């Protein structure tokens, strides 16, 4: 049996080595695979970032409520910070309505993350489609791609409603709406073309390679917005803890607060690293995608077999470097 497998491999390898088209296909599949791997890492990192933001928002609310008895949280109740601060040492307004300058510290819920998550699911669905096209596998139009498309469409409707009724997240909502729309267009293109053509190679040629790069920019914007939020909430907690520490005399309480203060300083330093690592994952994905696109649409089609192998090795090397730096990433939160 082993002997037969070896013979089969040898015949397959010999057939492949003899045909330039087969070799091109091998490189194409190889690049599509490295691209989908890089894509999953980039999207996973964004998901992890959103988890961090939610945890930090929770900790900030806890610190706020602990700092002032008028800072209350409950179902549909968010603390209102009085601004400018009044005499009487109160941070929050209590039950009274917000005045000019006052602001609400909102508890983040799943709904707030839904637009970003659907963009990520959409990008993953696109990468899966590219993988299927390159590997000549059937496209899962009703499942992964169709599902992601429907979710994006639903989110786009929701975001429009959220923007109208929720003035507290104007900047984030505009970015999210653009990102959702871009990813929706990308998947829509695949779905439209897939029903028109019977050969996946034709579909491959009809894809707009620039659209993916645009959507990667959307992913970077989403990461940036969430990182800003994380940074702001870590910093606000730092202020609350420092103020409390300066007024406290008890050694045990000071010890606890000092530990928290140190932890927050370290978190703020880690944030810069996290920002760099996220940017690196997106760049790695962009590089892998560009190499793949060059092979399919660019001058790569005219390269000799040895040139193609060399190009594939360089791409793999670049990705390996980027991915190994990610493996060493210290989890900040």
């Amino acid at each position: 049996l082993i002997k037969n497998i070896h013979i089969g491999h040898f015949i397959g390898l010999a057939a492949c080595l003899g045909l330039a088209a087969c070799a091109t296909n091998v490189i194409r599949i190889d690049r599509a695979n490295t691209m989908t791997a890089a894509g999953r890492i980039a999207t996973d990192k964004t998901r992890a970032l959103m988890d961090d933001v939610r945890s930090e928002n929770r900790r900030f609310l806890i610190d706020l409520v602990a700092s002032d008895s008028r800072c209350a949280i409950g179902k549909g109740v968010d603390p209102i910070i009085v601004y400018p601060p009044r005499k009487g040492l109160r941070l929050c307004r209590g039950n009274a309505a917000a005045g000019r300058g006052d602001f609400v510290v909102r508890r983040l819920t799943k709904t707030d993350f839904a637009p970003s998550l659907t963009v990520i699911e959409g990008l993953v669905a696109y990468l899966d489609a590219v993988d299927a096209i390159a590997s000549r596998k059937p496209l899962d139009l009703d499942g992964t791609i169709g599902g992601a498309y429907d979710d994006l469409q639903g989110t786009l409707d929701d975001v429009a409603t959220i923007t109208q009724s929720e003035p507290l997240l104007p900047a984030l909502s505009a970015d999210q709406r653009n990102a959702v729309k871009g990813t929706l267009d990308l998947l829509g293109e695949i779905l439209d073309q897939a029903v028109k053509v019977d050969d996946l190679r034709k579909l491959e040629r009809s894809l707009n390679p620039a659209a993916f790069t645009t959507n990667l920019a959307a992913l970077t914007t989403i990461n940036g917005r969430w990182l800003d939020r994380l940074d702001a909430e870590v910093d606000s907690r730092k202020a609350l803890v420092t103020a409390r520490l300066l007024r406290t005399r008890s050694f045990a309480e000071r010890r606890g607060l000092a530990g928290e203060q140190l932890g927050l300083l370290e978190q703020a330093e880690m944030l810069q690293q996290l920002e760099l690592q996220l940017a690196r994952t997106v760049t790695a994905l962009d590089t892998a995608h560009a190499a793949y696109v060059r092979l399919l649409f660019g001058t790569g089609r005219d390269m000799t077999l040895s040139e193609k192998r060399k190009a594939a090795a360089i791409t793999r090397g670049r990705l390996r470097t980027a991915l190994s730096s990610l493996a060493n990433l210290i989890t900040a939160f």
Partner: protein
Amino acid sequence: MADLAGPLRSLRDSLHALLIRIGDDPGRSNRVTGSILKVNQLLIDGATGDDGVSNHLRQLTERIAALKPGTGGKFDAVMGELETVLTSLG
């Protein structure tokens, strides 16, 4: 209109340093803490402003950095001006 993230972050650093200099004065500490929270809220909202606002924030950052503990009148004047600017931004 330009993104105010840079000037707001510098201002925030200056306010944190002031908070430590103030020490255990609860009234002032509460005022500075409130302004740090407000700056962070503006950063989350992606506050924008023209060059005039940007320059005003930079100027206030320097004046806050120069504040010494015990300078009551100056503290009230600078913080009052800062609160007016931050309130106008959102």
